[in-house]
């Protein structure tokens, strides 16, 4: 028997109580203090400066890490330089074996890594457990296989490693971004100095332990913790031959300027403001799931998040109704709870940035919708939010919010959808939902973005190249294309 609208609304409003289902943390040992991982072991830093890394869901300190200074970074780069010759000369099949080993160790320690990732970064355990960690292991496994097959990747050319790669990664997918950086670099025969994000250094510390466990030759992987200053020391060190950065477009531009004229090879994976486009013939329930996954996955801390929803005018009303109803069922809270959909915002600074942009949206005249949602008292939280009445000129439609905030716009024709989707300096990703095959291909062709998800969103795979057009950066990570930034071809 069909429900009346009144009944179904009542049902939608009803809150279900879920029994807590917290992931246990007793099997995880986080050290109170970490040194720097240089030359194959944790060493005492030259820098006396330390800073805490906290759990954003509780604001409790988890550990202290070093803010590496110039001497520390130099030491790490020297260790990597020293290791380079023998690593690059090692029979490629041996390099492959180390990478396979690392991949296996990540799998074996997956539960520990998932818990550490969730505690340090605030993301729901079901995401770190089902997405971040398995994809990290898969990335190492994929590139392990390339290490002794590079000659087959680039016809008519001989591949050579570059030397020391300086890599700076963000806080939204700490271990996965580490894997995206380190796996292809090592497979290609380079050595690395990696700086994890200042708010999420812990999974990189566990990874350092894994390198030791794998008996990876000393100096092949070096990890220095710190904030922006440390990162800039890594990228500007004269012995670093390759720079890879994932982060904001603003910082990416600074790095591009900093390495200008140095001959360093550069890849940048920067911000985005993806359009997720829903046509009137799309299966609406599937589209709603895709929209939710597109923007509320990982609290919207995703560079390729579908932060601009473009809905065909004729279905805007029913789609928004379904979407709002779905938002009211999202569970926000303890990231360690296995039922949690939306975890904690990564840091106070990020929370303030989201709040500021949301306020700008209200001031500029957009209409804010947030489901009823109780926020925990401690920690950093932001409810899943969506804006309607958004003009393309609003800041919330132009700037990357990097939070669980969706801007909804409408369109009438495919041409208008494409024009609006491309009306941004970014070009990282895009989504399209329609049942019409020829339209999918036409849309995919016309969207100026490096990744197009059709009737799906936010899918990742080590074999699938990822990276942006325009101000979303250059170079690709993943797939055979992801090897090129780490090789010189002769």
């Amino acid at each position: 028997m069909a429900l009346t609208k009144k009944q179904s609304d009542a049902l939608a409003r009803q809150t279900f109580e879920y029994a807590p289902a917290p992931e246990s943390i007793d099997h995880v040992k986080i050290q109170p203090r970490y040194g720097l991982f240089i030359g194959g072991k944790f060493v005492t830093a030259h820098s006396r400066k330390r800073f805490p890394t906290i759990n954003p869901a509780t604001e409790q300190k988890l550990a202290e890490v070093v803010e590496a200074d110039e001497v520390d970074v130099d030491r790490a780069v020297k260790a990597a330089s020293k290791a380079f010759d023998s690593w690059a000369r090692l029979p490629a099949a041996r390099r492959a074996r180390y990478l396979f080993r690392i991949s296996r160790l990540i799998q074996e320690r997956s539960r520990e890594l998932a818990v550490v990732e969730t505690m340090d970064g605030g993301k729901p355990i079901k995401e770190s457990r089902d997405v971040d960690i398995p994809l990290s292991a898969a990335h190492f496994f994929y590139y392990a296989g390339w290490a002794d097959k590079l000659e087959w990747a680039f016809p008519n050319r001989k591949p050579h490693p570059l030397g020391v790669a300086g890599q700076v990664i963000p806080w939204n997918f700490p271990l996965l971004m580490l894997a995206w950086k380190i796996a292809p670099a090592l497979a290609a025969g380079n050595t690395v100095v990696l700086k994890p994000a200042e708010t999420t250094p812990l999974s990189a510390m566990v990874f350092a332990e894994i390198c030791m466990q794998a008996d990876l030759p000393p100096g092949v992987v070096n990890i220095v913790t710190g904030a922006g200053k440390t990162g800039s020391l890594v990228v500007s060190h004269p012995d670093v031959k390759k720079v890879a950065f994932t982060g904001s477009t603003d910082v990416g531009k600074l790095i591009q300027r900093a390495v200008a004229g140095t001959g360093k090879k550069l890849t940048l994976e920067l911000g985005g403001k993806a359009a997720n486009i829903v046509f009137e013939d799309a299966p609406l329930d599937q589209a709603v799931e895709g929209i939710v996954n597109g923007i509320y996955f990982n609290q919207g801390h995703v560079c390729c998040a579908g932060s601009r929803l473009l809905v065909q005018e004729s279905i805007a009303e029913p789609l928004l109704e379904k979407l709002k109803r779905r938002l009211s069922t999202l569970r926000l809270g303890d990231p360690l709870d296995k039922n949690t959909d939306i975890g904690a915002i990564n840091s106070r600074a990020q929370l303030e940035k989201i709040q500021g942009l949301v306020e700008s949206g209200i001031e500029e005249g957009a209409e804010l919708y947030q489901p009823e949602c109780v926020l925990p008292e401690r920690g950093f939280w932001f409810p899943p939010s969506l804006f309607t009445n958004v003009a393309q000129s609003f800041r919330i439609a132009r700037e990357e919010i990097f939070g669980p905030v969706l801007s909804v716009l409408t369109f009438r024709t495919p041409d208008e959808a494409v024009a609006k989707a491309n009306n941004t300096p970014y070009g990282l990703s895009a989504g399209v939902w329609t049942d019409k095959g020829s339209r999918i291909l036409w849309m995919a062709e016309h969207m100026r973005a490096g990744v197009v998800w059709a009737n799906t969103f936010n899918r990742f795979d080590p074999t699938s190249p990822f990276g942006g057009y325009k101000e979303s950066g250059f170079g690709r990570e993943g797939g055979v294309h992801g090897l090129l930034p780490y090789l010189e071809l002769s």
Partner: protein
Amino acid sequence: MDVRKTYKLFVNGEFVRSESGRAYRPDGGKVNVPRGSRKDLRDAVRAGRTAFPGWAARTAMNRGQILYRAAEMLDGRAAQFVELLGGGARSRRELDSAVETLVWYAGWTDKLQQVTGTVNPVAGPYFNFTIPEPMGIVGIIAPEDSPLTGLVRRLAPALCGGNVVVALAAESHPLAALTLAEVMATSDMPAGVVNILSGQRKELLPWLASHMDVNAIDAAGCSAGEIKAIEESAAGNVKRVIKIAEKEQSPYLIAAFMEMKTVWHPIGV
């Protein structure tokens, strides 16, 4: 008495004087060459942006035909170019090499995707493929020591993939590049796909490198100092700066002017 030619800039398929009204005489010769300005460059970029979607949407075969047509037109004017390049066997070799380059890349338009694209075996029920797509507007700086072939070596791969080009002619020997514009104009190349400016490199290069609607700069013909300045300005809109060696002739060079796009679609749902 011969009828002398007035050399002009090539912008949006038209031969125009510099809006600045300025000219210079390369090599202290008798020929006036327009000294292009920031505004000429702006017009060229605007023409390129307008032409880009149409050129990128041409079929690969059609772009190949047009590049081949350009080779035909260039070869047909061989004598004129040899003379412009100074005459003699060396100039003849340069001309032949430029023609050969156009023919070679004409044959790549419909093969690049097969060589650099991939179908990716993702671990899930998705069809996933990666294909090269043109970046958009590419700025090319012709090398001073190879004013024709040096330019064609970069122009051809950029056009091959579906990009449009704003090129700066060699400052000291601009006549070959400005005459190459006549070849482009008679090759069925749509207006705005190739734009060629003459003028002072130190005046135009900074505007080209900092222009917010230029997607990439090919810096093969540039000095180390110029490359540093280009890379600093390029950061303003995250331009790609391509530094592959001047003499490279390969699909890797075409790919350097391309973006890789990956498309996902579920299977079976």
